[in-house]
């Protein structure tokens, strides 16, 4: 049983989808309950993973399963090969955790064609989980592409007024990137076969050990990096995101922000960076520069938005810039911070989209100018909104602070010092746009008559927010629960990225004098820094 836990977790939602499809179309409540139950059971199935202490000490893949899947003579071997380490563990947990919350949030929001919506949600969960646990590049690609279909329909059918444009743009942007990645995957496979490493199919762990010529790495890296950069999204291929986020229904926005964007950053960490370490060194300054541009640009554009949802969408661009910068720092503290920030962003921005959803359900508008003084009318809502806002800004003792602080620290310690200096301004700008928005929506006079009899949050809505609030505080106060389990895997990943470029002798930069020392040194430091962090 426990050795099949990942498969069970991944395909249970698919099974649930089939059940949901068989339920009567008219009974929306039943469909919602069934979906909620399926996602809750999926979460329970995944829970033992988070509690397993093995990740504290081992960087290897655990819960692995390997079944030969496609085998075409001596041409191809594709395996159903899955497993998780301390990095994917938390992304898997984030997915299974956020799904029931999202389903709960649709209770009043989705009333047309409930059956289709719920079926797509469950299909999406399978695809997302599958992508996080795949250890075979081909398998990963299948799940990666499969993810597009449900989200396309969710935006297109249940989205806002400009939904068609947003849905098609979302689909085409993401698919174009991944098609080029497909070519790179096939090319990589042939190279692996030539070097005698293709015996296990598209096994990612085998591919790590290939030594490729830098010129070849360069092109393959570009194909992978482009595809993931669209998903993250990094400046300047971020333009699909504000459209998709704004037009998507609340549940779609939450999933997009909380999980699907992490596919891109995860892709960098799991695939693009360790597979092509030399190419990474070559492009590192450019990528870091794009991340910093993303941070500042996203924040500046967010500041000027009139629509709350668009503001949150652009803030995502800014936050994901931080995540990328942390990854590119290539030291333990930066990368750990970046993974933590992926989770933080999932929780905080997910929560923000839910909050926007609450407002929209009540007023059917999201324009900041329509609101004002809501705190008097909706005190519970005000408290929750405040906490989430502060968490998104990165107030100490809340989750956002730990992640951003570690990322900036990591960047300062690496070659990216000057990038970190500029990135820090993003933290200030975040405070500006978030607090300004909060002030305009919640404080001031309650002078718009339409706002004067708004209802405060219902029990269900508080239940939706409560789990998120728990983790906002938990990560803010005691991040070690999460950090200690990702540390071995992170160190291993960094070793793979930095040591290999040296070992092959193809290294471009003078980075990473002694990877082993670097890693342990940084790891030691962040424990100290954390300590100072939460007593702030």
């Amino acid at each position, binding site marked *: 049983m426990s050795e099949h836990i990942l498969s069970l977790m991944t395909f249970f939602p698919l099974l649930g989808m089939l059940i949901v499809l068989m339920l009567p179309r008219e009974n929306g409540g039943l469909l919602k309950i069934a979906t909620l139950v399926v996602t809750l059971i999926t979460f329970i199935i995944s829970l033992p993973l988070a509690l397993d202490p093995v990740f504290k000490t081992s960087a290897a893949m655990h819960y692995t399963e390997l079944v030969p*899947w*496609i*085998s*075409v*003579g001596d*041409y*191809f071997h594709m395996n159903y090969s899955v497993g998780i380490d301390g990095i994917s563990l938390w992304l898997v947990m984030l997915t299974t955790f956020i799904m029931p919350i999202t389903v709960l949030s649709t209770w009043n929001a989705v009333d047309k*064609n409930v059956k289709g919506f719920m079926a797509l949600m469950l299909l999406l969960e399978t695809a997302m989980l599958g992508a996080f646990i795949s250890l075979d590049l081909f398998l990963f*690609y*299948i799940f990666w*592409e*499969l993810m*597009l*279909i449900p989200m*396309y*329909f969710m935006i*297109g*059918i249940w989205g806002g007024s400009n*939904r*068609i444009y947003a*849905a*098609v743009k979302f*689909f*085409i942007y993401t*698919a*174009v990137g991944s*098609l*080029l990645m*497909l*070519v790179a995957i*096939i*090319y990589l*496979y*042939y190279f692996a076969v030539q070097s005698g490493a293709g015996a296990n199919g598209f096994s990612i762990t085998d591919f790590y050990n290939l030594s490729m010529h830098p010129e070849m790495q360069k092109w393959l890296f570009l194909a992978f990096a482009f595809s993931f950069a669209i998903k993250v999204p990094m400046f300047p291929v971020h333009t699909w995101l504000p459209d998709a986020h704004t037009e998507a229904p609340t549940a779609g926005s939450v999933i997009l922000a909380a999980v699907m964007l992490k596919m891109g950053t995860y892709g960098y960490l799991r695939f693009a960076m360790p597979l092509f370490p030399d190419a990474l060194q070559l492009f590192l300054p450019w990528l870091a520069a794009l991340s910093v541009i993303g941070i500042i640009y996203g924040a500046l554009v967010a500041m000027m938005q009139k629509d709350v949802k668009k503001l949150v969408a652009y803030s995502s661009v800014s936050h994901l810039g931080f995540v990328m910068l942390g990854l590119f720092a290539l030291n333990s503290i930066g990368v750990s911070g970046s993974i933590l920030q992926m989770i933080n962003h999932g929780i905080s921005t997910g929560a923000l989209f839910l909050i926007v959803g609450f407002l929209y359900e009540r007023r059917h508008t999201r324009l900041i100018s329509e609101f004002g003084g809501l705190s008097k009318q909706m005190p519970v809502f005000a408290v929750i909104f405040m906490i989430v806002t502060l968490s998104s800004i990165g107030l100490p003792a809340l989750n956002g602070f730990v992640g951003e602080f570690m990322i900036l620290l990591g960047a300062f310690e690496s070659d990216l010092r000057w990038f970190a200096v500029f990135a820090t301004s993003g933290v200030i700008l975040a405070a500006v746009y978030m607090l300004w928005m909060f002030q305009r929506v919640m404080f001031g006079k309650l002078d718009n008559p339409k706002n004067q009899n708004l209802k405060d949050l219902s029990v269900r809505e508080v239940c939706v927010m409560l789990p998120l609030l728990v983790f906002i505080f938990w990560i803010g106060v005691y991040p070690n629960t999460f950090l200690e389990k990702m540390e071995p895997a992170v160190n291993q990943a960094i070793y793979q990225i930095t040591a290999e470029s040296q070992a092959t002798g193809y290294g471009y930069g003078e980075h990473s004098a002694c990877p082993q020392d670097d890693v342990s040194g940084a790891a030691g430091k962040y424990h100290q820094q954390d300590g100072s962090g939460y007593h702030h």
Partner: protein
Amino acid sequence: MENLVQTAMQNVNFAAIMPSLVLSCFGMALLLLNAFLKRGTTLYAALLSMVGLGATAVVTYAGWNNPQFGFAGQVALDNYAVFFHFIFLLAAALTILMSDAYLKREGYPVSEYYTLILFSTVGAMLMASGTDMMTIFLGLEVMSVALYVLAGFFRSQLKSNEAGLKYFLLGSFSTGFLLFGIALIYAVTGTTNVADIGNQLTMNHHLLADPICIAGMLLLATGFLFKIAVVPFHMWTPDVYEGSPTPITAFMSAGPKAAAFAAFMRVFLIGLGTLHSSWVGMLWVLAVLTMIVGNFIALKQTNLKRMLAYSSIAHAGYALVGLVASNAIGVSAVLFYMVAYTLMNLGAFAVLVLAGKVGEENLTLEGFSGFGYKRPVLAVLMCICLFSLMGIPPSAGFTGKFYIFAGALNAGYVWLAVLGVLNSAVSLYYYLRVMVYMYFRAPEEEFEWVQLKPGATLCAVISVVGILVLGIVPSAFMALARQALF
């Protein structure tokens, strides 16, 4: 004299043409039967044709791993031929499934229609199993003549007439090219047998530079590429596809196209294999042009039938990529892709047949507004076919494209693969647009749907099941495609 008869009889091996014989017999029996039964009902004809196709499948299967040669090297029922036979039988069967309801709706319940489909399939089979240029030509003519009639089958409809005439004129013109090419190659090598042509060219290297030989090769290519509808020989396709009866359009885009591919690959890889360096560059360019022209013009189409016509041009381009690769994986990928394409295209056309009203004025994008709410199951089937045509996993279309581009990369054609996937990216837009209309737009008022017809629905369901099976567990099937290489 006796001696001559004996020698001739020794070469006769009916097992090699058994599938064509059986299917021809059914076709002729059907023709006879028509004379005695009263007009107006066609169901029996459809059923009898299906029985015929089933019987043919059985005798065809006897040739798998049991190659039969006959008629002095003119015909071979090898694995390659058997594989293609099954594609034609599949295409014909799916076409017949969707035809009955369609013919009734359009007011042409004429059972000769089925006879013609059977004869056209016989021609296709001869093309795939022909190992002599003359047999291939014979097969091509049998197939084409039946198709000319089928394209113009609705004799009172202007568009159908135009389709028939256009196809006939341009088709016979291109056949002329093919014949001329055969003649020139014969002039150089002194044989029409494909394998002998190959041997002659391999042994006499000076022939390779002979301009007559090159000219012959180019003319042959023109003849085949016309039937495959490769740019720049594609001009007939959109009009013919739009004007023909919808099931016939579906059939033409799958069966005959696969037949032309079968003969083209046999002739060019075996007969003209030594000329590989002369034709591969040309095919590279044509493959890219075909993908680009097909996809970009499809972007502008508002009639679904016409859009699928242009998309079928683009798909011929993808398949051509596998032939350019000319390696085992590339060629077996072409075989695989032909099956995948047959399934996804016929599935999509079956939905069009079910959705169409009399005269099919409503097969526009606007006509599909809200289809997803009016006919949820059909719309889902359509979506799966479209996703497969796009090449989104897990579908047969994705697996097929994956193998094709893998073949190209394996042969070192990186840019061809890149251009191929970029073209797929372009195609996303027009396939997605169909779904935009089906799901993202409100249904139009006064929407009268014909009843769900069991035949066409079954056709769509079979296609979709096939798409998913080939998409999720393709190994066994890919192994078959691999064994089918000559």
